[in-house]
């Protein structure tokens, strides 16, 4: 799949937080949302999603509650906690800094050195 990028380690949590920050989602919804907002460039392995969700709940960044989905099925919905919102803000800033730094580093050409 040439149009798709490998997830960097540690980015899954950030993606989940971002996806959930746009509105509460159930597990499968998180997968779809990440696909959608990354322009189908990032694919999350289904089995890897749930351990990450559980870990985030345990860290107090997400809260979970049972509800009914659009398909009229029972599903567990995840939403951001205030701590999760804070973490998302920090990590987004960190990620942007890193991306900018990487971008400028990789764009350097011989004349500028």
């Amino acid at each position, binding site marked *: 799949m040439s149009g798709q990028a490998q997830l960097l380690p540690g980015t899954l949590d950030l993606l989940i937080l971002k996806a959930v920050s746009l509105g509460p989602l159930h597990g499968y919804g998180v997968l779809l949302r990440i696909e959608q907002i990354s322009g189908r460039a990032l694919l999350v392995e289904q089995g890897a999603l*749930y351990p990450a969700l559980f870990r985030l709940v345990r860290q107090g960044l997400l809260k979970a509650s049972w509800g009914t989905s659009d398909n009229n099925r029972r599903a567990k919905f995840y939403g951001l906690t205030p701590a999760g919102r804070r973490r998302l803000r920090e990590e987004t800033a960190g990620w942007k800094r890193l991306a900018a730094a990487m971008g400028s580093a990789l764009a350097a050409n011989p004349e500028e050195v």
Partner: protein
Amino acid sequence: MTLRALARSAAALFHRSRVEDEMDEELRSHIQHRADDLERSGIDRAAAERRARLEFGGHQRFKEECREAIGIAFIDTLVQDLRFTVRLLRKSPGFTFTAATTLALGIGANAVVFSVLNAFILRPLDVPDADSLYQIERGPDKAGAQSYPDYVDLRDRNRTFDDLAAFSFAQVGLDTGDNPTRAWAQSVTGNYFDALRIQPHLGRLFHASDEHGPNSVPYIVLGHAYWHTRFQDDPTVVGRVVRLNKHPYTIVGVAPPGFHGTLMFFNPDLFVPLLNEEQLEGNTDLHKRGTHWIFMVMGHLKPGVTTAQAIADLSSIGAYLEKTYPKDDGQMTFALARPGLYGDFLGPVVQAFLIGLMLLAALILLAACANLGSLFAARAADRSREVALRLALGASRARILRQLFTEAVLIALMGGAAGVSASVVVLRGLSAWQPFSRFPIHVPVTPDRTVYAVALLVTIASGFVCGAVPVRQTLRTDPYEVVKAGSTGYVVRRIAVRDLLLVVQIAICAVLVTASLVAVRGLLRSQNISFGFEIDRAMLVDTDLSMAGYKDGTVAPIQKRMIEALQTISGTEAVGLIDQPPLWAGSTTISIYRDMMTDLRPANAIANPVTYKISPGYFQAAGTALLAGRAPTWHDDKDAPRVAVVNQEFARRIFGSVTNAVGSYYKIRDGSRIQVVGVVEDGKYTSFAESPQLAMFFPIQQSPTTSTWLVVRSSRDPRQLTSAIRTTLRDLDPAMPFSIETWKSELESGATLFGPRMATASLGVLGAMGAMLSVTGIFGLAAYSLSKRKRELGIRMALGAQRAHVLRSALGRALKLLAIGSGAGLVLGILASRVLAAIVYQASPRDPVVLAGVVVAMALLGLLGTWIPAQRALSVSPLMLLREE
């Protein structure tokens, strides 16, 4: 893992089945949603669901990873480790028992000592708002005692205290109508209870408004415990009139149960008004500004006031007092201290002693941990094959270490539980114990929450310390090597660390054994020295005549009548009176001056001899030898010239010799010329460990005292005289409270012997513990090195080596370490014993008996430690040994 996360894990564990159900449901929901999407793209439902499941992947792996993420896994592993550990420990009950017992000793000792430390130092006085309560200390000596006029000025002039209360102590004769008994009272100012914010249990307490000058407050307040024992919790006592030193007093109330006065551990029976001092003590110092008899002045700081502000405030009052009363007040600077342990007077001494004891207890625990650490290391070595196998099969080293730590902590917890249970028993006993039967002193050292928390912490910490010893060895394990070559590859190097541990431990044990032997020897020797009086066949009758209302001119006549009456009892050889027997509880000293000296400033004093007041016949009754001159007679009364009998040391130091002394004169502070009429032998006056002190004896008619100790010397067992003495004295004055005791038991229960006894007992206990720890240490090493060399020994024996010879080479190492450790410990112990010399009589470590005792004790310990392993090794046949493995 943060605490919160751990809590969530624990919660997840408790709702385990619910969590698992939820996981299943969520998984199902996910697959359904995926299948819905697939179905929408045109696949039929059954195929869609199959494909959704396939896409998702391994169900079990998913759940395992989720569990890990929730944190159940952590606890799962712990439970697994615990199960495994319990199984292992069950398989070697000997090891488990030894290890747990060793730790129980160490942790128990620490729990006991810490409880005492807690009770003495950490716990504040049990009064409301103890944080802002301070006592006032005066002058550079930080004296707690103040004079009453100074107290009144401090109370009325200060602007930094809510209120200042004062108290002192008095022994009173309480007569409820039938039998007069003596009781310990705390005499307090009217504002005392209000200043301390104490509410009555029954009736009312004193108030400042009760006070209208000396002897104006005919009320008493009962302590709760005394109300219980003496009045059987009778609520009708409030309002009852009783007699105190023959004066009528009304019981106005009962203090609350938790309140025991404001000197820690001293539980007064009742509270009496300080202003009535004259009725209760027989004389009064209320108006004397220069007499500092008030025991303590204290109060709560006003909110927001700092101690520095309070000190400045007090000191400015002090400066004013110095200027106004230059004759009486000097050095009126002030400091603040916590009231419980009598501020800076007793506090630092007790603190230093207890902290020393705590350090010693910590040393013992450290020894126990070192000891166990080496046992664990030995065990880990024994298990190196198993560990190697687990490593080879893919277990992580962290996982294996975790199991080792689980084992260590589990053993520590068992030991800790046993140790703390034992310490609770010991502490209950200590709390119920009254060290001085004569004083109302209780030391409530029952453990509280702090103690349990500290014990738990210490337990877990020691588990980790023990567990940490074999860590390096486990980390270095090379599974390939071990599985290939057997477990002997790295034994030799590790022994060095273990050896060091053992030597340190044996040395610590030897220090303790040396110190306790020195103390015991000192104590034994102190009981064989001459006191300067003869305690056998002598009874002591003790009373204070002020308790029966005698004062001034009536005291000496009743004392003479008492002596004469007791002399008529058949079986008495001699009867004499002294104001306070030597070696009882402290002593009084008076400055003396050369006869020619006219400027009687303290700086010109030539000595401060211990001073006693005695009746004629005292020396005979006490068995003190008169070396020259005469003893006082009944003719040495107020109208006769003042005389004194001095001891030999006094005669030698002041007058050069005994013969020079008799007939010579000297002066005392008030300017009186005193003629020495006799010289008696030297004795011990304040402690057994003291070097010869100067002492002088004044006749009671010239220096009256209401404090009365009658010495009755009998020709037979003095206890037979008890009832005769009682009836004789009752006939003289039925309202006089007194107690009768043999001199021997009076001395044994006295404060003088208490210090050395306690020191000896604590050292003895610690020494015994140290010894037990050393035995387990040596045992561990010997057992270990024998089991490691079993094969080699078997071969040697099979080849015809003598068993004794083989054993010697196997145990030689343990014994050599024992010798090194003992030697080092002995030297350290000798150095440490110098500290003991301050408490224990002639605590000389260079005593051949002590040296021999230490060597024998350590040799016995070595024998004990190596006996069982040696026996075990000898009882196995070489063939069996060789066939193993």
